């Protein structure tokens, strides 16, 4: 630890930074292991221990540093290990790979080819991160430092220029100037609403009432989304620095970080960050020797999706049940305990130090007019490369899905992409060339949301997937408003009926009526957007709804009640595999006899379809099932020798 412990002036901060840097030799080898949730789930902790043991064994303990860092977003390729200073990225590293990496990459400075990421186009291993197609088209402003920082060590953040934005703000800018700079940057709320951040700051600053509060919203609950999580786990100080700057700008002395209890690493890392920042004099009383004081508390969320809505989140911090309240008077004026409260998303806060340091002009040069900066998406679903991607606003959906995402898995056809979490709308092929920004997405019936992006291929039934999201929201609606609670209940019931082949001709109209009412008349954004999946599914895939309701068939072969499994006798090799695995005993046949499915017994679990090595099992929907092959002998009992 540095000799300067408590920073009392900007000079102290610079001195400390120089000290930390001088202690660290850039040529020193280091092994950086990702210990974020994704990689930890893939046993990254064991990989780290294997490296520690191996370095000890080879007597390199003092020459090589092991660093636990945050997430780089390419989680499906985890655990990720980077060797510095050569910046060699290894993916899917197992504990038993440690000896080879240490002897080859660290001692001999050679590359272990087999652990590199293989470019699917060329089949060659890629050594540097920026050459991997997944990263090539990204613009990583917020996530960049995740791989370079140990989130539990404030000195790592300081070494990379951390807290210099705070020092600049406190000693060179007035609060008004800070607000003006944020306004000029045209940053918009990254939580999904896209409200101009600077305007929100100004409103809170000018609102009458004391005390004022600053709040971080890290209640990320969308299925498959983990952008806020990675930022909070990987670089908590960037969020904290933004928050302190916000407190200075609006005149707050108290702050809250609302994190989901389900994010234990995020909770731990932000708590550690707060403690360390206090120790270093960067938080607490007289920050960096200025007159600003700020106390920050971590509030753990109890697992309600709706608490991500700003007024519900504030109600939850107040100690009540997290339910939205009317926001006709903005929370910026009457928020937490009816006091002016500045609530921003994790990504918004993390953008602030960058804007302060590099200027609003620079920030505006990224992205498009009216939509500046970058957005982090969690790209998941049926794409080849899944993970976190940070891209400039205005990139087209096609580039995002096909260049960064590497296209659709198994050469299938793209069908739709859902953006903005469970209440985002589906966007079909015809709109793939729209730029991704707040306004364009709303125009096609979807929304930016917090940045979830689920790609669907031709095997997805758009009625079934609308049903899935309605059911998700049904579980997560707080139940306060009648149109949301009862509307979702009725929608869920209608959609289940349609998927079960019990749809009626009037169902489409009823669905539209309810969905429109919800969109118009509800209290909170969750409710008003809850019908988006249904409305866009109807708008772009109406034919599928009609096929379900009128023809009683599911064109994507998904809805179980509307499909049948059938074994193509031409293709069946009578291998007995499906016959043995069928849990319902529905498959008839024998060693040398073509198999067939007894439809009476079939429970449509799909096991035979999954395991057949000859693609002999087919799904049929809306067509008659051919009768079993003629001349079938009664089934013989299998003898012992088989």
């Amino acid at each position, binding site marked *: 630890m540095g000799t300067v412990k408590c920073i009392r002036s900007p000079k102290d901060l610079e001195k400390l930074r120089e000290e930390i840097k001088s202690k660290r030799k850039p040529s020193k080898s280091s092994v950086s292991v990702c210990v974020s949730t994704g990689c930890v789930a893939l046993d990254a902790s064991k990989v780290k221990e294997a490296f520690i043991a191996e370095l000890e064994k080879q007597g390199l303990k003092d020459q090589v540093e092991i660093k636990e860092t945050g997430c780089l977003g390419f989680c499906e390729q985890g655990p990720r290990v980077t060797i510095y200073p050569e910046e060699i990225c290894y993916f899917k590293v197992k504990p038993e790979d440690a000896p080879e990496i240490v002897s080859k990459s660290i001692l001999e400075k050679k590359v272990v080819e087999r652990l590199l990421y293989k470019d699917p186009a060329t089949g060659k291993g890629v050594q540097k991160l920026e050459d991997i197609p997944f990263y090539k088209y990204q613009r990583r402003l917020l996530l960049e430092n995740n791989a370079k920082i140990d989130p539990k060590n404030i000195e790592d953040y300081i070494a990379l220029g951390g807290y210099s934005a705070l020092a600049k703000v406190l000693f060179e800018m007035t609060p008004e100037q800070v607000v003006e700079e944020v306004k000029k940057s045209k940053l918009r709320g990254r939580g999904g609403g896209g409200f101009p951040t600077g305007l929100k700051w100004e409103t809170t600053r000018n609102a009458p009432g004391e005390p004022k509060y600053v709040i971080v919203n890290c209640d990320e609950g969308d299925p498959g989304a983990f952008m806020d999580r990675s930022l909070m786990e990987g670089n908590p100080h960037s969020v904290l620095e933004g928050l302190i700057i916000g407190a200075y700008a609006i005149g707050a002395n108290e702050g809250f970080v609302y994190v989901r209890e389900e994010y234990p690493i995020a909770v731990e890392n932000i708590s550690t960050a707060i403690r360390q920042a206090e120790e270093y004099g960067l938080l607490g009383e007289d920050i960096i020797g200025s007159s600003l004081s700020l106390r920050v508390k971590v509030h753990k969320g109890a697992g*309600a999706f709706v608490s991500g809505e700003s007024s519900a989140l504030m109600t939850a911090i107040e100690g009540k*049940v997290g339910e939205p*309240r*009317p926001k*006709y*008077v903005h929370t910026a004026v009457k928020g937490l305990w009816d006091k002016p409260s500045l609530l921003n998303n994790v990504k918004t806060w993390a953008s602030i130090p960058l804007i302060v340091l590099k200027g609003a002009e620079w920030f505006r040069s990224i992205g498009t007019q009216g939509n500046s900066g970058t957005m982090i998406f969690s790209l998941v679903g049926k794409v080849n490369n899944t993970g976190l991607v940070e891209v400039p606003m205005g990139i087209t959906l096609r580039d995002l899905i096909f260049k960064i995402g590497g296209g659709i898995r198994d050469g299938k056809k793209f069908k739709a992409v859902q953006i903005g979490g469970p209440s985002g709308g589906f966007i079909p092929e015809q709109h793939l060339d729209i730029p991704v920004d707040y306004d364009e997405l709303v125009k096609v019936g979807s929304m930016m949301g917090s940045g979830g992006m689920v790609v669907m291929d031709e095997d997805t039934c758009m009625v079934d997937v609308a049903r899935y999201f309605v059911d998700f929201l*049904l*579980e*997560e*609606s*707080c*139940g*306060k*408003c*009648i*149109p949301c*609670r*009862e*509307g*979702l*209940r*009725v929608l869920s*019931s*209608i959609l289940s009926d349609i998927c079960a082949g019990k749809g009626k001709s009037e169902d489409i109209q009823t669905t539209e*009526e*309810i969905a429109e*009412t919800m969109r*118009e*008349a*509800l*209290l909170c954004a969750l409710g008003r957007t809850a019908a988006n999946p249904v409305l866009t599914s109807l708008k772009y895939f109406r034919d599928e709804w009609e096929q379900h309701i009128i023809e009683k068939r599911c064109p994507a072969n998904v809805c179980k009640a509307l499909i049948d499994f059938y074994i193509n006798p031409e293709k069946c090799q009578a291998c007995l595999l499906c016959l043995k695995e069928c849990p319902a005993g529905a498959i008839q046949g024998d060693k040398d006899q073509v198999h067939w499915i007894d439809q009476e017994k079939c429970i449509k679990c799909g096991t035979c379809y999954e395991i057949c090595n000859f693609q002999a099992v087919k799904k049929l929907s809306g067509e008659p099932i051919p009768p079993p092959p003629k001349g079938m002998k009664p089934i013989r009992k299998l003898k012992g020798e088989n």
Partner: protein
Amino acid sequence: MKKVITLQIDDKEVKAEEGITILEAAQHAGVEIPTLCWYEGLEPYGACRFCSVEIEKRGRAQVVASCCYPAEEGLKVKTRSPKIVKIRKIIIELAATSAGEDVSSKMRALASEYNADLSRFRSKAPLSPTKCILCGLCVRRCIEANWESAIGFIGRGIYRCIALFPEKAGLCSTCSYCRDVCPTGRTCSTFGPRPPFPRVDDVLAGRK
């Protein structure tokens, strides 16, 4: 002296004190806006959305709950536009989904006024009807009467219901204010003059 502002409700110029809601301004001007979860003197809750109106502000049209939205200078309010009538029809039909057909005369009157079919979605609710539409008036009235509430919401989404908190049962002063405010008649139908405490739960929750 509070500032007086002017707004337009259904093409009628209305003067109102600053700080009151659209609903209150309309009531003062003799324009009727139907409500379910609103009750004079109680904190507005904005849950039934039945009092929704269309407003036009700086050229932008929007649907808001009139019980919560503050009356603003120059606001144009439409309380009975075709869109609003349609929304109210759907809301009352939805409200009846779990409440059942045996609803209060107030709801029945509203249903016939808006051409709503109270049994439209009845088959979509798997539960036995409870009459309760979870407007929360009883809970809010209880807070007003006792400073704290002996009853409250439990559960989320479709599992939401009203229950008596056993540890707060002592608060219940059997004032029966809760039954006075219930718009569905749920509480008055079985709520006796002096019920034994545990029964409040059964009565109000309706769902066991």
